């Protein structure tokens, strides 16, 4: 203990060259894992690590956010656009607790993020020392794995495990809590990547028998429907999904996070599932005789009332996480494996067919939805601006070739519904947790991971103000995100529920907002406000063409609703197209 407290410099002079401090070892481990960017925020307990970061600034870029929650969301978005685990640093106590929302968000959406928190000196752990919190205990329910390190020599192994666990199997966030004395102390450093943990088996052998059964079920089905989730993207199975769908002429419906898994313009694309999803896939879920669920988990926002869900269908569930199978919906065939491997094996066994009649049923319902909801929302001739037309304009101008980030609320559903995702699109949104405030920090994380690609963040006026301080980060690093603020002066989604289910009693949902254009100006971010339809197209073009960060505020209809809607307690087939 006493020796460990000696400053690092002194130790270095006393030791041989192979000896480095725990703090330096941590950074070397990250470099070994291919990390080049870290999002974080310093403080007392993590100072030894930050000090060493200065020496490694050539290989490790640190982005100082304005709040640890922002760092967590940014790291998650970074992972979602690069396909590599995000890394996030925070100090002990309040730094660590500020991460919790971000950790939980990554957990619910299965995104690999390695969180490094500092902890007070090991001798003080458990004593309620200054800025000590039990982050291990706090983060336990929202991490895939976590561990505390109190000895410098244990750092490399912990980091190796952290990366292996975060990215293998069903990905997820992990947390390593490192005491301050372990950062100062020295060790003789060597690193070996982790490839095996006895109690953890992410690689599951393929059972050909199950694949054959699935093929038989598909070949015998008359009205099959594929439900594609985030897992398709996580396992890079979009090509295989498309091949299977085309060969078997199977319509594909997607969850929110699964939207980019299948080209939205494809004739077999059925639309988004669930509460604010499309009409056809919700109604026809209950007529399908076979459901092939791939990398999705039958969230309640997708299934509506479970008692009346898919009564006609047999269900095949292809899912890497066994605990998700039979959790919400009883399935007839469980295939507990990686989506891509399963689909690859399945495609040759599926018969090439056409199912024109079944596909026509989708088109018929699509037409109804188009007339009643989509056209008025995306091509209105009069009245205030609507979210749908803003999103549609961005979609047309980018042709799907962009990183689309959203916050949470009505605007998120508008993006999901009206942006045309395809193989070139990346969607970064908060699905499982629905975290307001996710959008802005996520957009800067996405842009940091993806230089060159346009990053467009659709954010509501409510959520924007939850993490608005990240404008500072965007300013400091000149991160070229395009912020599309959809300002309805309301917590729109909650207001919609109040209108529908609480007699239009708008309790604490109306907001007096600042002048967002001036505010962005204070951060040196070019900004513009649009209120009129005639200006919209040009304004969006200008935004997309801008070099650096840009904020476009669109002042939209205050009391518009997102429809259709599967209301709470209703079955998916009882989806409501219009109110009143």
């Amino acid at each position, binding site marked *: 203990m006493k020796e460990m407290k000696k400053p690092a410099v002194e130790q270095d002079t006393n030791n041989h060259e192979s000896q480095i401090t725990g703090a330096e070892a941590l950074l070397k481990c990250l470099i070994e894992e291919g990390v080049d960017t870290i999002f974080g925020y310093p403080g007392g307990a993590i100072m030894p690590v930050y000090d060493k970061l200065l020496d490694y600034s050539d290989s490790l870029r640190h982005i100082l956010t304005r709040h640890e929650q922002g760092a967590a969301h940014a790291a998650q978005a970074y992972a979602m656009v690069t396909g590599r685990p995000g890394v996030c640093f925070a100090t002990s106590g309040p730094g660590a607790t500020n991460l919790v929302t971000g950790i939980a968000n990554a957990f619910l959406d299965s995104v690999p993020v390695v969180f490094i928190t500092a902890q007070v000196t090991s001798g003080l752990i458990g004593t309620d020392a200054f800025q000590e919190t039990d982050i291990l205990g706090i983060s336990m329910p929202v991490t895939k794995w976590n561990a505390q390190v109190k000895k410098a020599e244990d750092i490399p192994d912990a980091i190796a495990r952290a990366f*292996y*666990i975060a*990215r293998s199997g069903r990905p997820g966030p992990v947390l390593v809590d490192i005491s301050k004395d372990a950062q100062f102390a020295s060790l003789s450093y060597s690193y070996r990547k982790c490839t095996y943990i*006895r109690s*953890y088996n992410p690689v599951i052998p393929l059972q050909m028998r199950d694949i054959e059964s699935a093929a038989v079920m598909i070949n015998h089905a008359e009205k099959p429907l594929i439900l594609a989730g985030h897992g398709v993207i996580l396992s890079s199975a979009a090509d295989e999904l498309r091949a299977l769908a085309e060969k078997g002429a199977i319509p594909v419906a997607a969850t929110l996070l699964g939207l980019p898994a299948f080209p939205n313009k494809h004739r077999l694309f059925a639309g988004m599932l669930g509460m604010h999803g499309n009409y056809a896939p919700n109604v026809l879920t209950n007529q399908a005789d076979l459901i092939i669920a791939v990398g999705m988990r039958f969230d309640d926002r997708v299934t509506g009332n479970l008692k009346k869900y898919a009564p006609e269908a047999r269900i095949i569930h292809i899912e890497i996480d066994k605990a998700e199978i*039979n959790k919400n919906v009883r399935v007839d065939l469980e295939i507990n494996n990686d989506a891509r491997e399963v689909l690859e094996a399945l495609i040759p066994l599926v018969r090439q067919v056409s199912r024109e009649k079944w596909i026509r049923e989708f088109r018929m319902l699509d037409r109804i939805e188009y007339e009643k909801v989509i056209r008025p929302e995306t091509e209105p001739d009069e009245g205030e601006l609507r979210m749908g037309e803003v999103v549609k304009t961005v979609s047309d101008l980018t042709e799907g070739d962009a990183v689309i980030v959203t916050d949470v609320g009505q605007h998120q559903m508008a993006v999901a519904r009206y942006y045309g995702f395809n193989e070139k699109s990346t969607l970064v949104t908060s699905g499982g947790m629905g975290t307001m405030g996710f959008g802005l920090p996520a957009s800067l994380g996405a842009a940091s991971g993806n230089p060159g690609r346009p990053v467009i963040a659709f954010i509501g006026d409510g959520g924007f103000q939850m993490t608005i301080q990240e404008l500072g980060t965007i300013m400091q690093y000149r991160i070229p995100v395009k912020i599309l603020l959809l300002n309805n002066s309301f917590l729109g989604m909650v207001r919609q529920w109040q209108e529908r289910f609480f007699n239009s009693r708008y309790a604490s949902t109306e907001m007096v907002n600042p002048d967002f254009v001036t505010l962005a100006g204070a951060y040196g971010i070019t900004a513009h406000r649009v209120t009129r339809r005639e200006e919209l197209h040009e304004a969006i073009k200008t935004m997309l063409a801008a070099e650096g960060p840009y904020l476009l505020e669109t002042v939209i209809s205050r009391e518009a609703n997102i429809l259709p809607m599967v209301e709470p307690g209703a079955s998916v087939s009882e989806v409501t197209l219009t109110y009143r």
Partner: protein
Amino acid sequence: MQQEYTISLFTEDHIGILSRITLILTRRQINIESITASESAVSGVQMLTMVVTTTPDMVNKVARQIEKLVDVIKVFVHTNQEIISQEIALYKVTTSGLMSGSMIGDLVRLYHARILEVTPEYIVVEKSGSREEITALLAFLEPCGVLQFVRSGRIAITRQVKELNAYLKEMDAAERTRHEPSEVYN
């Protein structure tokens, strides 16, 4: 239909694993009726035996969620017919009470209990057996004045399940023939 299940599971001997397991049960409002932690036949592997009452559907869901934990090696769920289980109990009774009548004799003959310590004030009796047997002995001793009573959690040996040793060997063998891990998220 709610029913009693014995969940036995094998974990790495890592700090925090018990918390993670109980979190899963707590979220589902499942009460742990008894829990025993011990070393297993394999060194470094910890064994936990828990008794819970829940539905067949729910016990399978939580078993899968527990098995998903990184440090959990294997989870088995058993109905009472599938296991041989024992609990152990200690009873401290007044010497005067126990010495009256033929109780001492019945204790050994009928209840297969053992006497651990005798003092002028109290006698300590030990009994291992099923929960019912232990409860029956408690009722038997009640009239002579029970000063203290303590019972252990359940320990269980399975009737038909493959030995953990065999599982671990298989896993390690698979590891040796395995090529580089195909990580899903690359």
